[in-house]
């Protein structure tokens, strides 16, 4: 069938057609010589062919030259092309303001090649005069091993550049160096539990180094850094005040936490005693444990905050509801009593301010233990704190939740939780009721997680007022004296320690959870300071008392006083004058209720 416009139709070029044209062209060239011979002009044909080949090469060279010129002249060359970067295995760790916390710094290993050394004595004398950190005997035996065995032996690793130069200046034959990146922690002991450390192979073993191990490796490839939520200035203030507390009150250990309750960021975390992550193998191994996450403590009355949050949220009672605190609470064979009885019935508010165990236990019974259990689960204190740190462990909670165990838990007895879990839970109570996971990484406002609503905003507001009143009129008065004008709220907690399965009456664990500022909208910037002291002693500084009101409370107050200006919290000078409350400062101890 004739196609329309067939005379105009041209088949599109295809490989077969091109191949056929090429063959045809070569065929013509080949037969040109034959044709010339037939015309008796063979010489001309040869010259033409030579000229053709020359022309082809000339065109090739011209093409190459044109391309080279174009590349050289027309290509856009970026100014400031990135040069090489020093090989680092782990990215830098910095605080939220960019202050350096951990970085890879090149160190050097010094080797002796026994095949190139002249005499063992000369090598030994030279190296031992410079390498003074390690035992001389060990170094000497390694040098002997290298020289006698005619092989290469690592004599010492971790040399600084200065030490390497000193060895190099000796001019010893057979002594060589190998670069080895090492992690340096320039803050030494400071923030050691939060930063952690890594092994020489570059694997994180503790703290942020372990928690963010994969991210640190991937960020290192791009030459970046990872910013922690920590503020080094706040960390330093917290550590200084904890040291002071240990000195003043003779505590065995001290733990401190500062968090932003609106974001869940851990701004500071400190443990005493601490350690130097540059030399993790040295010193007491127990000092390397991050007790804020790895140890569980009976918190005592600090835990009452959760019971009160539940009771208020469930409208079990109102703050002016009077509870029977005159009579001890009989629970079968057990009796719940107050170590400092009020001698009268107290309102719910007074129960909180006086930290009455009987009143709190009655609230728990009124609400029902199942409800208390459900709320504690919602507050996150029956599970490990949600945080990147691997050190965060599960609490020790009653295996069976009944009236007996639940009542004890209501006032912080019979349950051992980590300080991190408490910080997470209290943050949820005081930020409007959203339980946010804690984080050691800096969080931008945009990437805030949406935590579950565990109490209503109204309950959160009432709790803030209750915490504030406890500091102005209740057991937190000594804390207020240390931080006047910062509208701090808080709750004390004093618990007897369990030693060999028995409660030790004289060995206490005290805590104070401070929240500031308590005024302003629920979503206003607000911070938590949690201070815990292990076995503080009655000293002159604590007026002969060992309860939290006299040691952990004032310590938290001093921390608030120092860090509030750093957090842009202004002192309200109208609230500077501390009210004189005409009643003795007594506090109930969470004790065995037999």
């Amino acid at each position, binding site marked *: 069938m004739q196609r329309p416009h067939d005379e105009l139709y041209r088949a599109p070029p295809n490989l077969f057609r091109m191949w056929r044209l090429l063959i045809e062209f070569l065929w013509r060239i080949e037969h040109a010589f034959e044709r010339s011979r037939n015309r008796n002009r063979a010489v*001309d044909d040869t*010259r*033409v062919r*030579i*000229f053709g080949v*020359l022309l082809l090469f000339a065109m090739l*060279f011209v093409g190459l030259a044109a391309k080279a010129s174009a590349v050289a002249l027309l290509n856009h060359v970026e100014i400031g092309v990135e*040069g*090489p*970067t*020093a090989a680092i295995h782990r990215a830098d760790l910095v605080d939220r303001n960019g*202050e*350096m*916390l951990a*970085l*890879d*710094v*090149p160190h050097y290993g010094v080797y002796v090649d026994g095949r190139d050394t002249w005499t063992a004595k000369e090598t030994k004398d030279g190296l031992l005069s410079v390498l003074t950190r390690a035992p001389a005997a060990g170094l000497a035996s390694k040098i002997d091993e290298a020289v006698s065995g005619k092989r290469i032996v690592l004599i010492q690793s971790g040399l*600084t*550049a200065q030490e390497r130069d000193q060895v190099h200046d000796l001019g010893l034959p057979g002594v060589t160096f190998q670069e080895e990146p090492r992690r*340096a922690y*320039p*803050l*030494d002991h*400071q923030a050691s539990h939060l930063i952690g450390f890594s092994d020489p192979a570059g694997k994180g073993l503790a703290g942020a180094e372990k928690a963010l191990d994969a991210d640190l490796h991937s960020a290192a490839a791009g030459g970046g850094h990872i910013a922690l939520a920590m503020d*080094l*200035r706040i*960390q*330093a*203030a917290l*550590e*200084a*005040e904890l*040291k*002071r507390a240990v*000195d*003043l009150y003779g505590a065995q250990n001290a733990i401190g936490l500062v968090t932003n309750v609106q974001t869940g960021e851990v701004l500071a975390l400190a443990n005493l005693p601490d350690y130097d992550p540059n030399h993790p193998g040295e010193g007491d191994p127990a000092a390397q444990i991050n007790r804020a996450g790895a140890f569980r403590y009976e918190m005592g009355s600090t835990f009452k905050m959760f019971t009160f949050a539940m009771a208020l949220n469930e409208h079990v009672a109102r703050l002016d509801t009077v509870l029977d605190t005159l009579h001890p609470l009989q629970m079968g064979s057990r009796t719940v009593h107050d170590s400092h009885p009020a001698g009268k019935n107290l309102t719910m508010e007074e129960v909180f301010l006086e930290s009455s165990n009987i009143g709190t236990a009655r609230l728990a019974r009124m609400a029902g233990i199942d409800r208390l259990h459900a709320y504690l689960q919602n507050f996150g204190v029956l599970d490990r704190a949600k945080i990147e740190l691997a050190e965060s462990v599960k609490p020790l909670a009653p295996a069976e939740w009944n009236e007996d165990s639940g009542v004890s838990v209501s006032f912080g007895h019979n349950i051992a939780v980590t300080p991190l879990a408490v910080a997470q839970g209290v943050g949820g109570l005081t930020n409007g009721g959203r339980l946010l996971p804690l984080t050691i990484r800096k969080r931008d406002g945009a990437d805030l997680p949406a935590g579950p609503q565990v109490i209503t905003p109204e309950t959160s507001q009432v709790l803030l007022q209750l915490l504030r009143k406890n500091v102005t009129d209740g057991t937190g008065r000594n804390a207020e*004296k240390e931080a*006047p*004008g910062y509208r701090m709220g808080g709750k004390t907690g004093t618990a007897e320690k369990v030693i060999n399965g028995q409660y030790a009456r004289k060995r206490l664990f005290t805590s104070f959870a401070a929240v500031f500022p308590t005024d302003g909208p629920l979503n206003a910037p607000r911070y938590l300071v949690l201070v815990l002291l292990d076995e503080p002693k009655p*000293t*002159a*500084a604590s*007026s002969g008392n060992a309860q939290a009101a006299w040691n952990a409370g*004032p310590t938290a107050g*001093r921390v608030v*006083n*120092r860090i509030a*200006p750093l957090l842009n919290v202004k*002192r309200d*000078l109208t609230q*500077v004058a501390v009210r004189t409350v005409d009643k003795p400062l007594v506090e109930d101890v969470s004790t065995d209720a037999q």
Partner: protein
Amino acid sequence: MSVAIIRLLTVRVRGVSLVETVAFGCLVALMLAVYLFKAGAGQESARITELNKEILAEQRDVRRMQEELSRLEQPARIERLSDQMLHLRPVAAKQEVQVADLRAVARRPATPATPETPIAPSAAAPVPATAQVR
């Protein structure tokens, strides 16, 4: 056209084909150019290698200095030094006034400054335990 080309190819200067002479000249020029470019590139490459080494060495120095700087700027160290050398300490509540109260403060008779108890104890100046009781 082909006649002109053939004539050009047959031109000889002192018995040597002009085309061949020109081609040989081009070849020598190309060889020289390649040699010069390669020599120049080699020198540049050596210079780049040397610069890279310098950059790496400086990067190492920068990291060492960063470490040293962070060590020197440890807040605890700064605080200890400011306490020992300058007797600086955090501002106390009683040192703060509202703007409206400035006039009243100015009218108040001056009192001799009394040394404050250091906020942070230091090895050089331990805090007496009794000083903390208020």
